[in-house]
């Protein structure tokens, strides 16, 4: 039987989390169900009509732009996520060394992620400028002919991946750094006493101890990369010839430019299901490579 104190405690605890719970019901759970319903309708703000699975059928069978956007987004994710994770891990390891000017270096690497997305897109639009952008100027110095980064279909995706790498010193790196600093020194000392080389220490201590953090970064990295929006909206508007039409941009246009809210909701649910499956697969695979301290494996 619960004591009065326990009941009193439970009520207060519940009261404290209530803001989140209400927000969850109003802004997450309710709207999710509503968008699932909308995805089976034709809705343009004025009239609504139940169309069953028609929106989904059309997306898969009659909408080349849907496939184009999905293809672009998958390609972008395939390159930007692994490069981003490796890059942010490498920077975190470098910054975790006992070096002089650590704070200065940390700030310089973090700086790019402080640049707001719109300002960053405007800046990179000019960095990529084919005629006088600094990237082509720098490449010219080592004898590479100017590249039409944002005008040539073949170079658009690499340009967006490159731009995304500018931010690897940001949040993800900080999370790796926090993870690295959580590894007890005694583990490394023990490894050194056993005569382990720095590489073996990295393989046998750092990587396993860091694997939960890496798993977290990969999961959120995949989800984030599937939602790339602002940079393509500002820099290319999805062009040239839809080469940078990413999924979230296509969805946004259907929702807020064409007001095809039913179709856009179907797009949202397809995105959600894709990410759900990807996340599920990653959780399954994580049992093979993520090491949880104290867990029996």
């Amino acid at each position, binding site marked *: 039987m619960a004591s009065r104190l326990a009941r009193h405690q439970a009520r207060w605890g519940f009261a404290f989390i209530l803001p*989140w719970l209400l927000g969850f019901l109003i802004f997450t759970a309710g709207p999710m169900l509503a968008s699932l319903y909308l995805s089976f309708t034709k809705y343009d703000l004025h009239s609504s009509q139940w169309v069953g699975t028609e929106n989904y059928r059309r997306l898969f069978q009659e909408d080349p732009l849907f496939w184009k956007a999905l293809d672009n987004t998958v390609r972008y994710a395939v390159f930007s996520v692994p490069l981003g994770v490796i890059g942010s891990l490498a920077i975190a390891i470098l910054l975790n060394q006992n070096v002089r000017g650590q704070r200065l270096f940390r700030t310089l690497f*973090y*700086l790019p992620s402080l640049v*707001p997305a719109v300002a960053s897109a405007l*800046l990179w639009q000019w960095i990529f400028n084919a005629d006088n952008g600094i990237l082509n100027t*720098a490449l010219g110095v080592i004898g590479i002919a100017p590249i039409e980064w944002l005008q040539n279909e073949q170079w658009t995706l690499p340009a967006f991946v490159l731009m995304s790498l500018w931010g690897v010193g940001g949040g993800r790196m900080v999370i790796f750094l926090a993870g690295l600093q959580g590894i007890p020194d005694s583990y490394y000392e023990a490894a050194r006493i056993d005569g382990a080389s720095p590489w073996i220490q990295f393989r046998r201590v750092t990587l396993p101890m860091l694997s939960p*953090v890496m798993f977290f970064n990969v999961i*959120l990295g995949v989800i984030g990369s599937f939602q790339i929006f602002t940079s393509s909206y500002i820099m290319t508007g999805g062009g040239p010839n839809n080469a940078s039409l990413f999924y979230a941009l296509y969805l946004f246009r259907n929702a807020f430019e064409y007001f095809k809210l039913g179709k856009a909701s179907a797009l949202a649910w397809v995105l*959600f299901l894709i990410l759900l499956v990807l996340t599920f697969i990653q959780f399954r695979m994580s049992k093979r490579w993520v090491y949880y301290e104290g867990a029996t494996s």
Partner: protein
Amino acid sequence: MIGRIAVYMLLILGAVLFSVPFFWLVSTALKSSQEYAADPGALIPKSLAWDNFGKAWTALPFPRFVANTVFVTLICTVAQVVTGSLVAYGFSRFEFRSRNALFYTMLATMMLPGQVTMIPVFLIWRQLGAIDTFFPLIIPAFFGGGAFNIFLLRQFFLGIPRELDEAAMMSGASYLTIWWHILLPLSRPAIATVAVFSFLGNWDAFEGPLIYLNSPEKYTVAVGLRMFQDSFGTNFEQVMAASLVHILPAVILFFCAQRYFLKGINLSGLGGR
């Protein structure tokens, strides 16, 4: 020894590569149009054209954009820190039914793409007649301020000895007093970290303001910058001057909070323990 030299070389090389775009932005913002046209790639301007800022400031209702952004960002940041820390307090210090189920539900929402809720939430605000107001941007901040912030704060609270709460309880302190006088002061690093994340998130926000704000006098800087792109397409120096105004508060805040920043992130929960 060779290892240390290699570390420094890599750090310096990386820092230069990462900083060049930023310094180019700053230097371009300070170049005159003539100088930019003559040598766009130069990292150090020959003379400083401060009037780019003046031109950018007056050409569009830019002060208005800044005021709007400051207004929205400050309210949201305070609301997210206050309600987020209350929720974290509930999750870290109290036993109640389905607490863990609710906590994991909250963590799972981090993986939810915003697009799945975007359209119905838009329809709710439209129904309430709140399109082209700041309410759709501000009100959601009062509901805990996001799963990641709550998670970080909860992790930090878990690291604060419960004996402190219990001692305060003994002397008759209420739960709210404990939250305000014990947990918050002891959690400065976590509060600072969450405040920085919240501030940056709201200051940078683009898609929300793009969806909800229609009239230019309500624009935030992020949306307003797009107007610069349209109206100053060729005056890149002024676009960069305006961008710099957008960037500076974030950079200044980061410098101020840096001391606390990393200490506020306790990831032990991710390690399964």
